[in-house]
């Protein structure tokens, strides 16, 4: 099989994910973008698995999904917690830690 198309697709997905992280302010969307990137990589893995005609890659993809899920759990919990405390999920609202000048 020709893996090119699959790879193009994953590149597009990866890029969308990247752009999403950079351009969106909603934490959920940011999170979704990250998931998208990870999924695109999984697609790559699956593709290569087919190319090599063995199952290693697919297994790796499955493992990755587990890891991603773990991350998702924490991320979602965090978002919920943040929303509870600040009533917003705008990423720009959380800039307390920025560098403060003066105050010497």
């Amino acid at each position, binding site marked *: 099989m020709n893996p090119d198309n699959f790879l193009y697709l994953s590149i597009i997905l990866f890029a969308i994910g990247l752009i999403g*992280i950079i351009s969106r302010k909603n934490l959920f969307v940011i999170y979704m973008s990250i998931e998208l990137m990870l999924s695109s990589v999984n697609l790559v893995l699956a593709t290569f698995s087919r190319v090599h005609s063995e199952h290693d890659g697919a297994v790796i993809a499955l493992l990755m999904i587990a890891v991603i899920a773990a991350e998702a759990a924490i991320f979602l919990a965090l978002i919920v917690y943040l929303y509870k405390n600040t009533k917003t999920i705008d990423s720009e609202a959380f800039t307390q830690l920025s560098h403060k000048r003066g105050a010497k």
Partner: protein
Amino acid sequence: MSTLLLLVVFLPFLSALVLGLTYLFDTHKRVNEKFYTILGVAVPILVTILSFVIVLDLMSHSSTTVVTAVAFNWLSIDSFHIDLAFVADPLSAVMISFITFIGTLIHIYAAAYMSSDQGFGKFFSYFNLFLGSMLLLVLASNPIIMFIGWELVGLVSYLLIGFYNKEYENVTAANKAFIVNRVGDFGFIIGLGILFVAMGDNGFTFADIKENIYAIDNHTLTLVGIFLFIGAMGKSAQIPLYVWLPDAMAGPTPVSALIHAATMVTAGVYMVARFSFLYNEIPQVGEFIAIIGVSSALFAAIIASYQSDIKKILAYSTMSQLGYMFVAVGLGAYSAGIFHVFTHAFFKALLFMGAGAVIIALHHEQNIFKMGSLKKALPLVYITMFIATLAISGIPPFAGFFSKDAILNHAFMSEHYTIWVLGVITAFLTAFYMFRMLFIVFVADMKNNHIEHKALSKALTYPLIVLAIGATFAGFLGANEAYGGSDLFKSFISLNDINYSISHSTEYMLGFVNVLVSLLGVTLAYKYFRTSPQEPLPNKRVRTLIINKFYVDELYDRLFVQNLRSLSNFFNKTVDEKLIDGFINNVVHLNLYVASKFTSLQNGKIQHYSIYLLSGVSMMSLLLIYILEVR
């Protein structure tokens, strides 16, 4: 003999140490003046006796014998050996004999002059220290030790000029003296340095230098000669380094008499005579010395004619007489120069001590125009001062005539007619200003004279008499056969003089000219100042110029002092703060500025952080592409 020689130098130092420590640690003033007087005067007397013994010993031998004494090895590096050693040859023996003799007299005089002064002990400590240093200078067997003495006398001179240190001006004068002297020493040490390099491994005593002088090329010798003479300029107050001498009169009068008239200031002349073998090789430098000497003599004489401070007049007169001496040594008449040093010591010390007596009598009044008709009040002082004035004016048969005559004759015979003419003019002026002073102080009737006179103690007056005898008869020691003498002085010190044969008739003729101009000066002074003083020169502008000493002090102040101070401020404010620190601070601030700009990227926004991250990835990718393509 050599032990005696060591004693001559070390005794004054020792007594200075004892006196100084006693004074310093005697906080409750328990030690009374007698102790200081006895110790302070006894040592010079002892040293005088010792020096006479040495001189007599030298006289009893042939002229080439010298007495040497090595104390210890002072410095020894590689092949460079400097012993703390002393040589008494005729030249130095003569020097120490009159230095100690006059020094003793002035010590005695000072015991009276300084009595009941707070710093009596200190004064004698310094005085003895000076005597020791001067003897060290004179007796040194090598230029390095001589330089130590040279420096030490300068230091003691500084301490004594600033003796009354509560007065700010006195200390200023002391500083001026020391700094100007140091400028001279700067030249001196450069001379020594060049000489040192030129000598190589051949040793560095005067004897060694004399032996190897022919191995050194003339150019180097010229440099050495000039630089050494710069040292002499400073010490002996010649143009342009003379400015300190008049100010140095701020010290107590015995100090002026001993240091700034009789001994220290003649060190320069002595030094040139000591190096006579060197200066004989470089007559062009000798001429230069003579020109400086005669100009200083004339210049000082002009200024002296308009001074009103008795000590300043004497100071300028000293400078003028030193000029004569340099004319002599510059033109190769070393013994004539030293002879003038010798006679000058007597009459100038006498003049100063007389002036001191007057000052004491008038409760520290120094302005001659506030004195007048002291003849009756102070007859002894008047007579002795009169003798001294005659001596300095070159009236025969007083001491000054013979020495000055010898110098002027030499100038004439060596065909330096300009120098001779200037010398003669100076002789005229000398007679004029000295008698001016004498008349104003002792004879003229001043209306504003209401000061009570203080009685003078014997210690103040007896030394005057002794010196007056010296000022009268010392000249005969050096009288040449034309005047019925036998050149005793010259043949004894036996320096490498350049001799000219001179017929008796020329001799008499020149002597006559000298006496004539001197008498002219006396007459002029008599005319203007016998009764009531009036300055002879009508042109007011010229007079102001002269009274203000040609504004040389002001010029130096503007030229050196002010500039140095503003330079110092410039270094501090501009170079350090603006230039160097400014540069460093700018670098630091630039760094901090960039740092703060860079840090302000930390704005806490996740998007931005992601962009940094991704831009990092892009940069790395670009770099990778670049590297791979290159490969």
